[in-house]
């Protein structure tokens, strides 16, 4: 099986990550931050080292790093913990439901939102669009670092400048970009950075990361191992947002994933994965009946992932055929109907190709040939 669904979760995981997970289960078995005995302290040290690594990698302080169970939880903490009734939020037209559903739910609490449009070929056009949407009560901009459907990157640096100019909180859904492109919260002026470590950082599923550089109200209260006599949640991060037991083996393995990405180098990872996507794109451009939705991907505007369709077939049918031929791809709406609305693919969905650092060029050629042969039998009928 050739796995090209790394946008859902990366696979395989590097050997060092798998070993770190197993070591954590064997040797770091106590609950960190709860007890004073040696094993609890040793486990807490291991978790703290990962907070430090993550803080260093993403541009913050260790206590600003929280470990929810996934990026969706991180986004919920960031949005629901900062927005108040009467606030207005600007987001983009490409967002995943991890952003859109919390925003929609917050409408019931008096929070409004607007979606900034952009030209897919020139994502920088979103800045002017955001300017037109600005209101007196606009309090936050929340955007994806890059679309999980089509790979379009948003200009985070320029958006950070926009937020600073207008004194807005800046929240980034880095589920697709973290571990592939440099994202430094301090340099980019990001207040809340939400990461899916099980994707670009090659961590196990069940890990999330939130780097919070501004205050947040908790949305989950519970035991934190701190100030137990008080019935209010602790005031300080990270415990304020880490009620209950964290996914300790996952977090320790996440540390190893960060090491892996650092050792490989972001530039090298990006260049490799983009080469895979460009090889596929260039081949498919020559194929009749294959539809693609962006210009040729390159680093000026794209993460290394792409989407396509064959003829008028529903994307799930194409993915099913490719699955039978040994290729693991995701089709449909990718939990991001907003992006599909923008691409005008709401009915058909799209098939997504997302390589990892382990993907080989011959695998992309094998996929391209399968798509080409299948496409010959399925013309576009409308």
């Amino acid at each position, binding site marked *: 099986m050739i796995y090209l669904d790394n946008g859902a979760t990366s696979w395989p995981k590097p050997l060092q990550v798998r070993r770190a997970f197993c070591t954590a289960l064997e040797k770091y078995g106590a609950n960190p931050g709860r007890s004073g005995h040696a094993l609890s302290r040793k486990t807490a040290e291991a978790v*703290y080292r990962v907070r430090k690594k993550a803080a260093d990698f993403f541009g913050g*302080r*260790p206590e600003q790093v929280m470990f929810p169970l996934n990026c969706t939880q991180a986004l919920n903490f960031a949005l629901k913990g900062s927005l108040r009734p009467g606030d207005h939020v600007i987001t983009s037209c490409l967002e995943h439901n991890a952003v859109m559903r919390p925003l929609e739910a917050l409408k019931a609490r008096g929070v409004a939102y607007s979606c900034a449009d952009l030209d897919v070929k020139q994502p920088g056009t979103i800045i002017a669009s955001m300017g037109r949407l600005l209101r007196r009560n606009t309090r936050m901009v929340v955007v994806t670092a890059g679309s999980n459907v089509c790979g379009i990157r948003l200009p985070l640096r320029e958006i950070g400048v926009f937020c600073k100019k207008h004194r807005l909180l800046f929240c980034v859904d880095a589920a697709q970009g973290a571990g592939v492109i440099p994202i430094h919260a301090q340099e980019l002026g990001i207040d809340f950075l939400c990461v899916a470590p099980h994707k670009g950082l090659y961590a196990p599923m069940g890990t999330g990361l939130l780097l919070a550089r501004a205050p947040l109200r908790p949305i989950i209260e519970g035991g*934190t191992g701190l100030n137990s006599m008080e019935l209010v949640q*602790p005031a300080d991060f990270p415990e304020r947002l880490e009620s209950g037991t964290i996914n300790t083996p996952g977090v320790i393995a996440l540390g190893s994933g960060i090491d892996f990405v650092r050792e490989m180098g972001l530039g090298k990872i990006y260049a490799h994965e983009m080469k895979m996507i460009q090889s596929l794109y260039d081949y498919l451009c020559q194929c009749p009946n294959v539809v693609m939705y962006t210009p040729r991907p390159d680093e000026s505007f794209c993460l290394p992932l792409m989407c396509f369709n064959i003829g008028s077939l529903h994307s799930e049918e194409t993915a099913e055929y490719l699955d039978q031929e040994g290729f693991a791809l995701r089709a449909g709406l990718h939990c991001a109907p907003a992006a599909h609305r923008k691409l005008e693919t709401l009915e058909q969905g799209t098939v997504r190709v997302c390589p990892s650092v382990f993907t080989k060029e011959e695998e992309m050629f094998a996929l391209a040939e399968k798509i080409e042969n299948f496409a010959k039998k399925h013309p576009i009928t409308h």
Partner: protein
Amino acid sequence: MFKEMVNVGSVTYAMEGRDLLRSKGFKAYIRRTPYHGDRKGCGYSLEVDGDLSAAEAVLRQNGIKLRGRSQVSRQ
């Protein structure tokens, strides 16, 4: 004999504080905060060999929040 420790709250701040103090030449160790029936209960403290007030100043200057002192018995 009793020794004073500085209370820092969470294990994260305790580790950050310990590493900071050690980088400044202090010998610092993480301990559980002894519960003496105060309002808060549960947390971590830093036991320091040397001038505790000087250690507290270093911690404060570097953004580590301090939550008073506790005493622990030492032989």
